């Protein structure tokens, strides 16, 4: 019974996250949703127009496609690890409870 309630709660949590991501997309139509740091860069340009970055990134992804690949890879590795650990714990948990 308690287990059922938790799983219901978990679905609510996931729906909350999805909603929070979708609402801005629907509410603000004419935006590209560019990164917040790009906007901060523009503000720096406003405050101190003469400032120039004094160091360049050693490695810049050659384009948007490669960049999104790397980000997807990052998310994929992380999510895979989380899934693996939780799955392992779950397997252990279920084995223990069947023996009991």
């Amino acid at each position, binding site marked *: 019974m308690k287990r059922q309630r938790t799983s219901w709660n978990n679905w609510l949590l996931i729906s909350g996250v999805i909603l929070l991501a979708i609402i801005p997309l629907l509410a603000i139509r004419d935006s590209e949703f560019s990164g*917040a740091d790009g906007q901060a*860069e523009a503000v720096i340009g406003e*405050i101190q127009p003469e400032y120039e970055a004094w*160091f360049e990134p050693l490695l810049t992804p050659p384009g948007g496609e490669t960049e999104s690949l790397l980000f997807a890879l990052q998310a994929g590795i992380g999510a895979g690890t989380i899934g693996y650990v939780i799955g392992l*714990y779950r*397997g252990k948990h279920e084995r223990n409870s069947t023996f009991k």
Partner: protein
Amino acid sequence: MKLKQLISLGLITATSVTVTILAAPPAQAMHIMEGFLPVTWAIFWWILFLPFFWLGLRSLNQITKDYPELKLLLALAGAFTFVLSALKIPSVTGSSSHPTGTGLGAVLFSPLIMTVLGSFVLLFQALLLAHGGLTTLGANAFSMAVVGPIVAYGLYGLVLQVSGRQTVALFLAAAVANLITYVVTSLQLALAFPAPEGGILSSFIKFAGIFAITQIPLAISEGLLTVLVWNWLVTYSQEQLQVLQQIKPKSL
């Protein structure tokens, strides 16, 4: 039984990987970019950050030596930050940013452990993705991997004591840690770039208007996701959580 378990494990892993890869929105950078802090400020934040990192390394070393069974949980805490900082989520301000994922590990282990794990995530992004930077790593790590986790840890304890409700405490801890990270980022930028009129305060309001407001819905998302993973842990790995309860005062 063994085979069935392996299959289910594989399925869970494969599904989560697929879901995140398919869901990955177009990339944009975040945090303070490479070269965008004047040299003296870059050095200042590096110096402030390094002692925490060193203490964190020591604490991490201690835990893995004394409690090797907690390594999986450490991997989980690190992976959580890794995933969350890759998720560029659109926000109400019309720009996008990402969660930080440092609250979970800070509450589970200690803020110092998250300093190390968070810094590695930032290093990965600075080196491979040109996201953040090496010169600004000290500043970015200080906001995301030092201040964020400490706030999460403190707030969790406080709310837990006042309300007695673990999930509420965890939600608030994770959400506020996320938000405060970007408040600190705004402050760091304001200190380095005070406005000709109005000075640091006026700059701070400008930067916070970009970072912190964008971050509000994402902070809520992060709180929800943290509670989700926490629920799984509470359901399936009571044993590990109990070990953590015992060592917490020592690892801080």
